[in-house]
């Protein structure tokens, strides 16, 4: 990807904004639970005002935000895992409001998912990207198609096979 450096800077911006928003949610207990995609949308509304050029359209923004959200969630999950094991060698920032509770009912191991997704990116980068946009960014099939400049049918196909593969990988992890 040629626009990688720019994207990295933007990802950092969005990451900071997402963290700030998440922290605010926890402090004010505005909601019992907030979905990642809601947060992404809220971040978009704010950042689109601050930086109208960089985040011209929502699809472009979410394409970046999906990366930031993945990072945020995985780091939180890692920290929580570390805290559970007695906070061993990984430094844990104690004021991290994101650690306040347990994850929801879905016993989805986000760290394992992240690892599997990285392996998938190695086999087929586009499939991994589709999952990132759909799952972490909350993009619809059509939006994903627009963001990746491929057809919705292709997105559906990639999504279906990637989902099956990831499930198999995660089950393999769990039983191993």
């Amino acid at each position, binding site marked *: 990807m040629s626009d990688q450096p720019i994207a990295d800077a933007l990802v950092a911006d969005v990451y900071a904004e997402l963290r700030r928003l998440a922290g605010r949610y926890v402090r004010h207990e505005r909601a*019992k639970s907030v979905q990642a*995609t809601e947060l992404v949308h809220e971040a978009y509304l704010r950042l689109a005002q601050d930086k109208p050029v960089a985040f011209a359209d929502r699809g472009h923004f979410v394409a970046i935000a999906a990366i930031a959200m993945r990072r945020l969630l995985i780091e939180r999950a890692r920290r929580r895992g570390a805290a559970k094991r007695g906070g061993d060698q990984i430094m844990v920032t104690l004021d991290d409001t994101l650690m306040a509770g347990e994850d929801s009912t879905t016993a989805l191991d986000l760290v394992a998912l992240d690892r599997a997704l990285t392996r998938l990116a190695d086999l087929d980068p586009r499939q991994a990207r589709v999952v990132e946009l759909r799952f972490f960014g909350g993009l619809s099939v059509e939006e994903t198609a627009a963001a990746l400049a491929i057809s919705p049918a292709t997105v559906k*196909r990639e999504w279906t096979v990637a989902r*099956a593969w990831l499930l198999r990988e995660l089950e393999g992890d769990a039983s191993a």
Partner: protein
Amino acid sequence: MSEAGESDRARWAAVTALFSRAIEQPADTRHAFVRAEAGADDRLARDVLSLLAAHDRAGDFLQSPPSAIDAPRDLLAPGQIVGHYRITGMLGEGGMGVVYLADDTRLGRTIALKAVTPSPEDAETRIARLRREARAAAALNDPGIATVYALEEIDGRLFIASEYVPGETLRDEIARGPASPARVLETGRLLANALASSHTAGVMHRDLKPENIVRTPDGRVKILDFGLARFVGAHDDGANLTGDGVIGTPAYMAPEQIRGADLDGRVDLFALGVILYEMAAGVHPFAAPTPAATLARILEDDPAPLRTVLPAFSLADVNVDLLDDVIARCLQKDPAARIESAETVAGLIEGDITAGNGRPRGAAPTIAPSHGVGPSPERGAQRRVEGRVEGWWQFHQAAATIAYVLLLIPLWRVRHLTPGPIGMIIFLAALVGVVVAGALRLHVWFAARELPDVWPAQHARARPWTRAADVLFTLCLLAAGLRAVGADDGESGLLVAAAAGVAISFLIIEPATTRAAMRNSMTDRARRV
């Protein structure tokens, strides 16, 4: 970090390709298909087959976005006792709060226990309303509706205890891709029957969506949260619509719901149309990047014709015409033009049409394949009749208004036949009647022409006033006519006859034309408004 080599990538590309083709095949032939296509490459076949198996059990894996934060919540833990319920697990959570699986220790049955979290500001009125709605919902007794057992207030917290329905939601089904027209119609029939029984009981759902419908293991469907959805759902009366695309998805709202008009059971029929379309096509008929855009599309756009979005395997299906017909009639934006009732939907699917468009009463069990032969000519004829009826009604509105104005002329002429100011008072009263009745008729006529959505409501609002003005005008004609007796028998006769004509017109003819124009369901609605 490239651990995978070229050969791994090539192999994965082959697996992906074969998997994607296999998934297009009917489920029971996939195995054979993969074996045949893979040929001697046993590893490829096994890889694809194990992925297909993973696909089959994937359920809602990765389908809902991860939670971004985990605020401290006072969750109930398994084993905990709430009132006479013992929590045994958690079924789900969302903006609505948490749904637990619980045992009713008194009656010894498994239930779904929903913790309702009313917003603090308007808790009082909301809880009062929730009580009323829960009572209505609890009265529903239909196999297609998850029964509400009780609304419990335990330690200051509100819970709804309802039937526990195992199975997966229609959302899960839709996520797996388009269903065959026959399956969609059968689902539509089951849903329509459930809606029919609840509408008869006077309860509408108002938030029907795939997430609220569970397919039980025996293939039936059950609707959840009947009449309660707007309390337990993420959005309350549309307040949260501007939020985002995830919670409070307004994608199943009917146009009149978005406009905030008066609602009746037909809002559920619109939602049913959207759901059936989505099941058949795999895409939402009003899909748009943002909720606001979806709302706009629901109000303005016609969805893409069903045939253009159906998968190839559905197009060949003999039930496509019937499905298209059912969906098109459910998705009418104007409730008056929408299919009248849930019974009619069920009847249409069962081939048991009583609405007078002449389809034979089918003995076929659920889905009559004989419907699949081109657009039905009977419906075209019905539309033409509807057009004539509407013209008749419009003619009546215009003719009545003109006749009223013309009748002011003889009234003016006879005003001095009665001594003192009485004649003038009668004339002025008649003038008021003519102006009020004329203005309201023209307003309703205009509404019917330009804003068919609001016509019924406007008509219902205007009707008592139009009536009063009609009565006033008739009495004026009668009084002036009787007073003119002897002085000018010609004018007198004309006025009395006019009074009789006006009375007949607004008492008999107008209700008939209006009823015909609005069709039966509309007058039901007008009566209720």
